[in-house]
């Protein structure tokens, strides 16, 4: 399989100098022969799972955070024997990642005892450690929620004097910014504490079952751990509760007759029982509406709390279904019964007692790790990130006030270290009573960067570059990004196809079984799901928990990125809808309105042109 050489990419005209928007170590280089050779021999794949679009300079914070987090746990904390960390690069604003193997067999061997001791400890004490994790995580979230971000006053408050505080708001702003960033990084330290091991347990359970039954579809094996309660569904459940409550109180019209939140609010306030419903809404909002409408990785991913129109449209859908007498609860009993049947039938086909013993042990481990693998997303990517983006916007508003930048949303065009520099510039100028240098530097630079980002967004990143490896040992690479031999060759096939308009067949992972035909609706963001019609087939870059209401309307889901453990696949399995995930190019090739045949059992989509 041929993929482009990482050093052959031409700079897009008009973006010359784009490299300065990102950390320098993210560049593919030609001035260091050793590094260049390493880069060419490595296999880099586009991380479209986390970055469906070109990444903004500020947003590289999470990329660096997981670059560190994943790699340190793999390599320095648990010492996964055959793999170090996952390396990162950037091309035209798109992140490429590459698992780094340990080549020397002797070194791999010397890592084994450490891994057995350390990882063994975590597996053995999983539940207690996970309980501790939840406490740490909630404390950190409380800390960031409480973090005050104050404007710079013309004259400090008298209390600074009378209480002998000895610190200014200028210093506080710089410190608070540092705290904010540090908490973000800390949060990502926690994020990876269990994740590698969780995925490993999960991956190798799947692997064992597929060794026993080489033709068992991955989705069927993942069904063996379906139906476990995870908080991923909680936000969606809150919408359902609010829908029921609205009907109970007789205020459902206020939600269904209005499209905009402001109108819904006004209508509610005019109703005698409206206040009661609004109170229930407030209770549900914190923290359950802290769900991002995207992956949570981008500043542009608004949460339900940022845009109440989205959850309101979800509630309206559920009210509508309830009024039609439709069932809105996920069929959990059915899912569990089916799970148990599948486990029992596969188990009965196992040939030997020894195999059955390993099967049982691996299944139990997979069930133990499963809740974390899902739940961490809510705490980190949704709840924490939602608060984090809000705090950053508060910092940005102060910079706008001091004319360092023109708009609150301009801050994302700056790297986080550049923001720190700019805050120093701004604060020292404020203290001194002079004009900061940044006022003439940043707005101009940001204008240019906006042009660059525009060009980046129009560019299509190839799914992979470099040299495809013979063996992949990194658990994430397999489960999360669905990187396997066949997916790589499927990607290569579409990449090589001359005319995307002539493609009639797309392959992805069989995410959730079933076959349906229907009309496509391409939704790039959660905002777009408001346009979804009942019975359409959702085509999205990827989905997240806040997309949940969409699944009540659709017939099937198709995503560009993700493996059988991705959100869309899991939710579809629970709802009994077919899903094909990790198609690589679904949203580029499929257009809204196209008739599709989706086979979630084989992972094949046919476009009826």
């Amino acid at each position, binding site marked *: 399989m041929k993929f482009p050489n990482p050093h052959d990419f031409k700079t897009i005209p008009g973006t010359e100098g784009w490299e300065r928007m990102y950390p320098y170590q993210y560049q593919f280089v030609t001035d260091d022969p050793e590094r260049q050779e390493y880069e060419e021999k490595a296999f880099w794949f586009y991380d479209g799972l986390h970055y469906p679009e070109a990444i903004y300079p500020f947003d590289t914070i999470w990329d660096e955070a997981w670059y560190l987090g994943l790699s340190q746990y793999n390599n320095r904390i648990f010492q996964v024997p055959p793999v170090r960390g996952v390396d990162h690069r950037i091309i035209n604003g798109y992140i490429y990642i590459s698992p780094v193997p340990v080549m020397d067999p002797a070194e791999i061997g010397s890592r084994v005892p450490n891994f057995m001791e350390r990882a063994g400890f975590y597996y053995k004490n999983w539940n207690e450690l996970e309980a501790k994790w939840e406490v740490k995580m909630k404390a950190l979230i409380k800390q960031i929620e409480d973090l005050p971000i104050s404007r710079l006053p013309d004259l400090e408050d008298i209390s600074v004097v009378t209480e002998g505080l000895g610190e200014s708001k200028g210093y506080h702003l710089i410190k608070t910014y540092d705290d904010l960033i540090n908490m973000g990084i800390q949060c990502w330290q926690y994020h990876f504490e269990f994740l590698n091991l969780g995925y*490993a347990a999960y991956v190798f359970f799947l692997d064992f079952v597929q060794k026993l039954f080489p033709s068992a579809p991955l989705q069927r094996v993942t069904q063996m751990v379906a139906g476990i309660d995870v908080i991923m569904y909680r936000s969606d459940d809150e919408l359902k509760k609010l829908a029921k409550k609205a009907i109970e109180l007789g205020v459902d019209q206020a939600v269904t007759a209005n499209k905009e939140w402001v109108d819904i609010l006004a209508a509610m306030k005019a109703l005698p029982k409206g206040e009661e419903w609004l109170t229930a809404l407030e209770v549900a909002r914190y923290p359950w509406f802290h769900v991002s409408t995207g992956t949570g990785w981008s500043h542009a991913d608004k949460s339900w709390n940022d845009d109440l129109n989205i959850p309101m449209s979800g509630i309206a859908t559920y009210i509508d279904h309830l009024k039609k007498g439709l069932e809105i609860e996920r069929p959990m009993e059915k899912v569990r019964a089916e799970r148990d049947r599948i486990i029992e039938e596969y188990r009965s*086909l196992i040939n030997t007692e020894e195999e059955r013993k390993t099967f049982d042990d691996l299944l139990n481990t997979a069930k133990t790790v499963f809740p974390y693998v899902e739940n961490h997303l809510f705490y980190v990517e949704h709840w924490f990130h939602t608060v984090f983006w809000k705090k950053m916007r508060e910092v940005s508003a102060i910079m706008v006030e001091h004319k360092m930048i023109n708009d609150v949303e301009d801050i994302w065009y700056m790297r986080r270290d550049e923001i720190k520099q700019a805050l120093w510039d701004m604060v020292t100028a404020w203290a001194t009573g002079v004009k900061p240098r940044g006022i003439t530097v940043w707005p101009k630079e940001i204008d240019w960067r906006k042009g660059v980002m525009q060009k980046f967004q129009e560019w299509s990143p190839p799914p992979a570059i470099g040299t495809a490896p013979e*063996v992949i040992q990194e658990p994430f690479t397999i489960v999360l990004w669905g990187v396997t031999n066949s997916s790589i060759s499927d990607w290569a096939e579409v990449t090589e196809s001359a005319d995307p308009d002539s493609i009639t067949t797309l392959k992805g992972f069989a995410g959730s079984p079933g076959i349906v035909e229907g009309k496509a609706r391409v939704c790039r963001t959660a905002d777009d799901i408001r346009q979804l019609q009942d019975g359409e087939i959702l085509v999205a870059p990827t989905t997240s928990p806040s997309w949940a209401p969409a699944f009540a309307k659709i017939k099937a889901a198709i995503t560009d990125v993700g493996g059988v453990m991705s959100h869309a696949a899991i939710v579809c399995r629970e709802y009994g809808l077919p899903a094909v995930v990790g198609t690589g190019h679904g949203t580029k090739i499929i257009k809204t309105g196209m008739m599709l045949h989706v086979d979630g059992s084989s992972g094949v989509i046919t476009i009826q042109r």
Partner: protein
Amino acid sequence: MNTVTSIERVNNPRSGRMSTLSPVTGLPLVCWLEECRKESVDLVGGKCSSLGELINAGVRVPPGFALTTEGYRRFMADAGIEREVQSLLVGLDAQDMDALENTSSAIRTLIETQSFSTEIEDLVAESYRKLSVRSCVPAVQVAVRSSATAEDLPGASFAGQQDTYLWVRGTNEVLYNMRRCISSLYTGRAIAYRINQGYGDELVAISVGVQKMANSFTAGVMFTLHPTNGDRSVIVIDSNYGFGESVVSGEVTPDNFVVNKITLDIIERTISQKDIYYTVDTKTQESRKIEVPFERQKVQSLVDDEITELAWMGKQIEKHYGRPMDIEWAVDKDLPFGGNIFILQARPETVWSQKQQTVAKAGVSAMDYILSSMLEGKRMK
């Protein structure tokens, strides 16, 4: 077993009395396949008893009836040719091929030219009529097959039980071909075999099955495990248009479907170019190889619903026998979907079932498995 009502109270010409069943043994002379079980080998031979077993397992098998071994004995007795047959065999030299063939030919002609008694004729005619009614045609085309009591006769393969006459239509034709099946007990090889083994002819018995021909639109084979890797979680189906002959003989690359045994979804499908198929030549009433029309060559030869139903049947058959099975099947073109898929034969799978396969590293703890798998990695090929 149910009472075989059709043979109750028939006139026994020899005794002049009315009798139920056989006056000597109380066994039926003719019975329906669904009345047979795997324990019925003595009465209806191996082939018919296994078809009966399948029917009773809830599997759809082309309907039919059998002349029982009791019926066979009655035929021989009624015709009064037992003595004559014996006398022809006296002093026969098993090494003398010419003598064997001459004797065989004489005996077979003797048997084939006898008539069945009115009693048996009536029973067969009535069964054939009912079979035609069940098949929704005036006179159904049937396969007439000998079904030997193989378990009682080691080396049964020489006993002539392979005789099969296809596309037989009409009572007289059925009766004639039943006698041909009976006479196959006296092929030269079968006679020689019995002489060499010292089996007396009184031990020999045969049953004859009469079964509706599956007029197959599509047919093929099905394994209840993966023939290439022994995976027991799948059912693998090979299919082509026409009779299963083209698939069994390997003359075409059939369509191939892999179905998940647990959930019955089709997880793999390979549609091949199928250039020939077998169908019946209505003039000669023999199956004949012909070319598949070009526009159908690359078309899936089974529809998805049929694949699912077939796999479901395979699963039931495996469950019934408690082991992986190798199955021949057909989709009948005369019947509507929902009742058109038939199982023609089912036998235990032998290749993988005899291997004791174990996944390397089985029996280890989860932690050890995770470690060893990590060390191995995922091969990208």
